[in-house]
């Protein structure tokens, strides 16, 4: 069978007509298979959702227990309307998975978001042989080369020593980045209390519950008249909070931001970030191209991000590739 007949893009998302399901649909559908808990991939309101247990837990935390009509934890190979479906770790965030679908000898892997670097807060990416590999391209330009994340965290700790009177506010997304940054700070040998914006608390608790140690945490609430209690402290919050009044409660805040985008100086400047930390949960250019070389699929489909460059790279390698032009996935939320 042709790959297009097994999976193809529809406005709702990637659709499998044989099994009558969507992967990571951006609108409510009857049956959804979901790669991971980021809001642009995992939406509420589907009739039936299949995902890893951790992704289901995360969706429950975000949207409430009744986020879907029915749920099913993915385990082993499952037959969905004659299509064999299985989930495999993607290394992106806790619970993230690639979804493999097979029918009449055609094997497609939709990797969702993934990375190959070491990360104790997410199960390591598993290369799954396939005929078609659907890759993300968030950092799909050869300029993206994520450095050693521990070295990046070192910059944060150095700055703390250099500016001990300033509160160090680190922008992180609530799912994945927050916990990874906490874990990295601990691995770098910092044991003091780290303070959290309220929006991060639930998911951090969940990671701890799943056995990922994050060290001593406390809510970032300021006692009246005690502004200085945060001098030299590390505070994590969603980047959107830093532009708001919330940030003004801290003494002379120094804004850091942990994101793969921080590699590009113009983007750093645009966001008014003083301390960029290049820490990403997506594959960088080398991880993308190494993965494609390793899997060597007959065809590569490229989705959200800088499709053009990755398709060009495949062309130069003699690898068949095309962009999928799926809409609704956020480039920025990394």
């Amino acid at each position, binding site marked *: 069978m042709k790959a297009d007949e097994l999976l193809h893009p529809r406005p709702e998302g990637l659709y499998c007509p044989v099994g009558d399901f969507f992967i990571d649909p951006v609108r409510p559908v009857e049956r959804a298979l979901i790669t991971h808990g980021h809001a642009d991939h995992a939406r509420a309101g589907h009739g039936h959702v299949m995902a890893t247990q951790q992704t289901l837990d995360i969706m429950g935390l975000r949207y409430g227990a009744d986020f879907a009509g029915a749920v099913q934890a993915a385990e082993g190979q499952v037959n969905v309307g004659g299509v064999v479906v299985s989930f495999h770790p993607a290394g992106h965030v806790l619970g993230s998975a690639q979804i493999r679908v097979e029918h009449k000898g055609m094997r497609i892997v939709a990797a969702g978001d993934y990375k190959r670097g070491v990360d104790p807060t997410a199960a390591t990416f598993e290369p799954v042989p396939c005929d078609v590999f659907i890759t993300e391209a968030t950092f799909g330009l050869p300029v993206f080369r994520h450095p050693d994340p521990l070295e990046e965290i070192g910059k944060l700790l150095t700055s703390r020593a250099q500016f001990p009177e300033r509160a160090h506010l680190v922008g992180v997304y609530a799912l994945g980045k927050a916990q990874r940054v906490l874990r990295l700070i601990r691995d770098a040998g910092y044991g003091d209390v780290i303070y959290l914006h309220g929006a991060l608390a639930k998911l951090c608790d969940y990671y701890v519950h799943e056995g990922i140690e994050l060290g001593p945490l406390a809510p970032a609430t300021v006692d009246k008249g005690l502004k200085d209690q945060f001098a030299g402290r590390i505070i994590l919050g969603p980047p959107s909070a830093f532009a708001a009044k919330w940030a003004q409660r801290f003494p002379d805040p120094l804004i850091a931001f942990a994101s793969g985008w921080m590699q*590009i100086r113009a983007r750093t400047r645009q966001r008014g970030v003083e301390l960029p930390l290049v820490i990403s949960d997506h594959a960088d250019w080398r991880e993308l191209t190494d993965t494609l070389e390793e899997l060597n699929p007959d065809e590569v489909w490229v989705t959200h991000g800088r499709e053009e460059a990755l398709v060009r790279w495949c062309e130069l390698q003699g690898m068949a590739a095309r962009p999928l032009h799926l809409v609704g996935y956020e480039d920025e939320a990394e």
Partner: protein
Amino acid sequence: MKAFSSLLDRLVLTPARNGKIRLLKDYFRDVPDPDRGYGLAAITRDLEFRMVKPAMLRGLMAERIDEELFRLSYDYVGDMAETISLLWEGDGGEDIRLCDIVDILQKVSRIDAPAVMVDLLNRFGASERYALLKLATGGLRIGVSARLAKQALAGFGSVEVTEIEELWHGLEAPYETLFAWLEGRADKPEQAALSPFRPVMLASPLDEASLEEMQPVDFAAEWKWDGIRVQTTSEGGERRIYSRTGDDISRAFPDVVAHMGFEGSLDGELLVVREGVVGSFSDLQQRLNRKTVSKKKMEEFPAFIRAYDLLQDGDENLRPLPFAERRGRLETFVGSLSDARFDVSELIKFNDWSALAEMRASPPEAVIEGLMLKRWDSVYVPGRPKGPWFKWKKDPYIIDAVLMYAQRGHGKRSSFYSDYTFGVWTPEGALVPVGKAYFGFTDQELKEIDKFVRDNTVERFGPVRSVRAEADFGLVFEVAFEGLNRSSRHKSGVAMRFPRISRLRWDKPPGEADRIEALEAMLG
């Protein structure tokens, strides 16, 4: 190189002046000689290398990466050095001393340059590659002026910044004697250079209410001329004209330099004077901001020094003497110079403040912008001491403001950034917008401002660009307006009536533009 490249990475993103100073001080503390001195020289752009050109670097990339992938990358990143630093294969991770890099770049020939750059780029990681490329191509623009660097040095050694300024022109990278002094390991370096810059004494704006407590007999009064303040120094055959921040602008004024056959240092106003008649400021602008000047321009716009003060007379430093005494010496000194190029600022005779106020209201020439009051007993001290010197401006509705935002114009100006929002300083040291103007300048000036805007854009929001505006870097407008109202709609709390740009002050550091208090005082 690692210490230098991480300093650069931090400096560009640190908006606060004090933060920048802290980073520099820590760098001076942590990095050994001579590396720290070369780092300093690179930042103040006193190190220049000529053998590495952008075209050569593009050529290196063409051998290494698909053209299409390069184009996509460069489009996205927007900066050539940054693009190359990120695209270059390998992560050498080596740390080569900055002094060795400087040595290599200074000695390399144009023919060897590509191979040498390839070798260095291979040995570095991305951040060091970026620093190397910027250094080698002379593109280090990181928002640190020489003045800020001097302040960091002063802070590092706990000395006055004027001490550094005074020494600066005799020093050369890597400044080892300077650091030795700042660390208390050696005496202050001798000012060995001939004709060094002598930090300038500035006046504070006069608060008219305080005239009551001031005795007219204690003060000398002079016209405040509408030119630019300069220091004209000639010692041992070395002739220099300095701007008031210590930039050497001699090369643009050979007509004055030719007549500096004296031994000493004069403080004065640079003007255009034709047969005794002072030209307008726009005449003078024909001579400013140029590296060289044509014979024709010199004939059309002859430069002239109206002397205010004498700082050095032969071997004698006059600055500790009272103004009255310096003034006497000044008259004798200038008396021996060519009167086609030099004269002495006239002293105004007055008995009481009201008589002086009347003269201020109707000055004898249009190019006078007010009065200067100087205590007869004032010694010449650098900076802006409160009390001895005052400026008393003619028109109350003129301020110096800093360009903050520029917007594209309409009609035939649609290709230019021609609508300007300008601001003044708040007590916290930030700029607050106080008005908008889109006329008052010539077409030529518009082109110059437009270029400035494009070269110094910080951010874009649709048709609007925000422009670099820091205490040490930016563009100052003299803004004239008809009146001032309180306004709750404006963040600054004031609204100007009919503001127009009366003059571009390329010569003025933004840090010396007006403060919001000055506008509040005008509200009365």
